[in-house]
């Protein structure tokens, strides 16, 4: 059908040919038939849904989101009580999904980059270890890895009672790991602590400006100012000085043994740890392969040219090979990030209160399956599209600027 243009008067010039062989007409016909089938399918489904809902004495609509949720969510990062609405519960779930995806993406990128470069290392042992890592995790279902951490490893950690005994023996410890999660002191910010944060932000801005100046200076004169040292000073000194000058307005709330479990402090549940570790390690194995492919996609001549210019191997990798490899790496990396976000929905299997787990609870309580699944799909598609847009922008920025 691509052969003839829609405006080609092929059918009209030769009246002996039946009208049915007119490509333009055929094209319209095919589309009308497709559209008719789709409309019929939607109509069929819609009438059935209405009948089925009527039989179950239910109505469709999103009004139920404003009714009382009545269930508790174990790890709520924004304020939430069982008296809040379903809508608020879904927000809690969305925040949890975003949090685990965010940390997962960062960890997976770092681990994947290291393992990917490690696989190409001249060091025999490191290369073999990295290969073993990739081949192990790439060929396991992510759900199994989550179960492995949750049921296999974290469940074997000390119970709360055993932990209390340990605390009695060494009372100086402030970090604890038990099968109920990881406990650490929670910071309590005193008066004026926001000034420290402002000082830190100002320091970072100054550091970025200095780095830009350093690069310009190097391009212009060949002399590179000590950017690393100055930037470290710029980032560390202002907040520390402000902190000391204000009289250290920071204290900690330590986790202490309660009646049945640890009290106070900050804690991360085993569900989050299991999901986070599994998602990062699983995705890292794919990212490692992408990084390796990207680096191998940069021709050997580039490395040799860098060595010929006298660059050290770390500089050759960082300044010559990786920037070129990035162009090959970014598109598949994007799809791995999207996969990680989508795989975070496996949280429901271990009871981490992500979007799907909270939605599933609501679905069971209210029976609003159509609405809940529509919300899931809408949110995941929006997250996917946003991530794709961001990565496309990043890709365009990194792309080869050709004359």
């Amino acid at each position, binding site marked *: 059908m691509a052969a003839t243009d829609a405006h080609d008067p092929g059918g009209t010039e030769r009246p002996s040919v039946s009208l049915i062989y007119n490509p333009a007409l055929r094209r319209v016909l095919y589309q009308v038939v497709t559209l008719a089938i789709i409309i019929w399918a939607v109509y069929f489904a819609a009438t*059935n849904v209405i009948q089925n809902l009527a039989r179950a004495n239910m109505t469709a609509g999103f009004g139920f989101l404003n009714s009382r949720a009545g269930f508790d969510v174990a790890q709520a990062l924004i304020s939430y009580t069982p008296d809040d609405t379903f809508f608020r519960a879904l927000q809690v779930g969305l925040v949890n999904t975003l949090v685990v995806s965010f940390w997962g993406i960062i960890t997976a990128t770092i681990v994947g980059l290291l393992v990917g470069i490690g696989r190409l290392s*001249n060091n025999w042992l490191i290369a073999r270890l990295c290969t073993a890592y990739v081949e192990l995790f790439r060929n396991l279902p992510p759900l199994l890895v989550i179960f492995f951490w949750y049921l296999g490893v974290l469940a074997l950690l000390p119970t709360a009672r055993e932990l209390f005994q340990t605390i009695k023996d060494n009372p100086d410890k402030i970090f604890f790991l038990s099968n109920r999660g990881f406990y650490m002191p929670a910071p309590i910010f005193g008066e004026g602590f926001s000034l420290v944060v402002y000082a830190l932000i100002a320091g970072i801005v100054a550091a970025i400006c200095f780095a830009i100046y350093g690069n310009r200076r190097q391009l212009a004169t060949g002399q590179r100012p000590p950017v690393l040292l100055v930037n470290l000073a710029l980032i560390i000194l202002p907040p520390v000085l402000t902190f000391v000058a204000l009289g250290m307005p920071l204290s900690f709330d330590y986790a202490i043994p309660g009646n049945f479990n640890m009290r106070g402090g900050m804690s991360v549940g085993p569900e989050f740890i299991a999901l986070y570790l599994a998602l990062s390690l699983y995705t890292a194995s794919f990212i490692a392969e992408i990084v390796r492919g990207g680096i191998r996609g940069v021709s050997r001549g580039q490395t040799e040219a860098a060595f010929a210019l006298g660059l050290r191997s770390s500089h050759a990798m960082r300044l010559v090979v990786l920037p070129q490899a990035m162009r090959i790496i970014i598109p598949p990396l994007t799809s791995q990030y999207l996969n990680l976000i989508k795989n975070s929905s496996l949280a429901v299997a271990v009871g981490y209160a992500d979007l799907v787990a909270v939605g599933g609870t609501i679905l069971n309580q209210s029976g609003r*399956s159509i609405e809940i699944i529509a919300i899931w799909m809408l949110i995941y598609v929006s997250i996917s599209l946003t991530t794709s847009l961001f990565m496309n922008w990043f890709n365009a920025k990194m792309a080869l600027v050709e004359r």
Partner: protein
Amino acid sequence: MTDQTSSFVRHDFIAPAAPPTNDATAFGWMRRNLFATPVDATLTIIAALAILWYLPPAINWLFISAVWTGADRSVCTTVVAGGIQPEGWSGACWAYVGDRFVQFMFGSYPRDQLWRPLTVLVIAVALLIPLLMPKVPRKGLNAILLLVVMPIIAFFLLLGGSFGLRYVETSLWGGLMVTLILSFVGIVISFPFGILLALGRRSQMPIMKTVCVAFIELIRGVPLITVLFMASVLLPLFLTPGNNIDKFLRALIGVSIFASAYMAEVIRGGLQAIPKGQYEAADALGLNYFHKMTFIILPQAIKLVIPGIVNTFIGMFKDTSLVTIISMYDLLGIVKASFNDPTWGTPVTPLTGLVFAGFVFWIFCFGMSRYSLFIERRLDTGHKR
């Protein structure tokens, strides 16, 4: 003009360099591959220490301390917990895997009917192996037998209810059998649908294109678990009231929808890689769209993306484990369900079961990825730039 005689000319030979030392020894190899630079040496030592620290306990846990035979949980628990093992013992409980092995493979399929899934397995393997070997002829017939005839036989044999076979409802199916059926059917159904969707996406008909793009992007944008929920919860709502659509069939539909969208993108990659000249040549020969696609474009495009298809299959195989969440019992689901069984309830049971399930999944996926590499190298002939 200045005199040039002042330039230096060497008149005598310099001493020959010493012959290269014999570096082909084990020490030479180590110097080059393990201790080339101080950083390398540090990394090597850290890695070696890590291996020495973790590997012996792992081997000990998996094999040496492991329990291989036994009838119930007592062989895998310490004396305090009512077993026979000494205090502080920990090791894999392979006796539990051995005891539950048939269940892990076939679920609750009636034990006296196990010849039925086994026959299907034999037929499938007998048809699959020649299809995978590039040198064996008659690929077309082989493919039709495997992809069309075998599923029909398998349907009647596994489900029963006709030809004098006992009816075995799908809720009794389970284990590796379900994993293999779900992924196989998913991939077989997704193949034609994937081709149609890919062609639709590249079509110039606006409505066709919009429908295909919307479907592919929607399904690829959401997690499989939401598609499975949709198939298991919404599908009965969409059909005429009072229908009773089988749960296994619902999961199959969900998996197939999901696989089709991914397959479409793989095939689209192949279609895009075919040079424009091929399309134009087919047009010049006067072939219509259907003939152009079936005889010229698709055979080349599919050949190009066989590795991608195998990768999709690996992904499907791993992803079928998600049906655990809609409470079906594939391999992972049945292993996980067996942790609650009091007969084998010990602290080491979950880890043992997961190591076993992981081993089975790993063998299948690793085998497929090796095959994909092999075929990639074999097919790496045409369209090379």
